[in-house]
């Protein structure tokens, strides 16, 4: 079974500092995709960043970047220059092709990020 593990239930960071959220996954697939989603309190989940497993280069979106270590099956999210609006639950997700051709999403339990002013 495919699993996604987020070992940090909660993380905190000072405003303007950098924080890294960890995610590991278990798979025997070679074709898969990894995502980080952000879910602010009482608001919908939105995509932060995605990474294709076949790409060696780490994805970057403004202040958000990933450290993708394929051999270690690790996909951590780095948030630089943290802002109060970054406070949210962050979910790591993995999508792999099923036998039917659709890419089934599997989510981790989430990490709650607290940002201190």
């Amino acid at each position, binding site marked *: 079974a495919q699993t996604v593990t987020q070992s940090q239930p909660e993380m905190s960071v000072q405003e303007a500092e950098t924080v890294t959220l960890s995610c590991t996954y278990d798979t025997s697939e070679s074709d898969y995709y990894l995502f980080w989603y952000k879910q602010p309190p009482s608001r919908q989940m939105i995509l932060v960043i995605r990474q294709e497993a076949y790409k060696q280069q780490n994805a970057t979106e403004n202040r958000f970047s990933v450290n993708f270590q394929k051999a270690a099956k690790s996909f951590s999210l780095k948030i630089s220059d943290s802002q109060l609006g970054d406070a949210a639950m962050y*979910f790591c997700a993995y999508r792999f092709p099923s036998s039917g051709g*659709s890419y089934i999403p599997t989510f981790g*339990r989430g990490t709650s990020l607290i940002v201190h002013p």
Partner: protein
Amino acid sequence: DAMVIQNPRYQVTQFGKPVTLSCSQTLNHNVMYWYQQKSSQAPKLLFHYYDKDFNNEADTPDNFQSRRPNTSFCFLDIRSPGLGDAAMYLCATSRDQGPETQYFGPGTRLLVL
């Protein structure tokens, strides 16, 4: 703005009383998903539709069913809600079945009394 809308945001039902949650989308996406999210747990995929094709996850209880009458709307029916079905229910869409970005609605929080 194109979006995923879920109604109602909060739903209270009684033990055993059927309840329907609704989701609509203006993105014209082919795929719609339903997730169950309990506190401190990962969102769990219940099923998804690719166009009219229904795909049930193997461990989704029979108590949960879904309907997609057209591209825009998808419903989650819980035939006989139990206390354990109290959760946040998330609807999501994606353009296609590939590894596309999913777009989520705000969720419906279900309370079972």
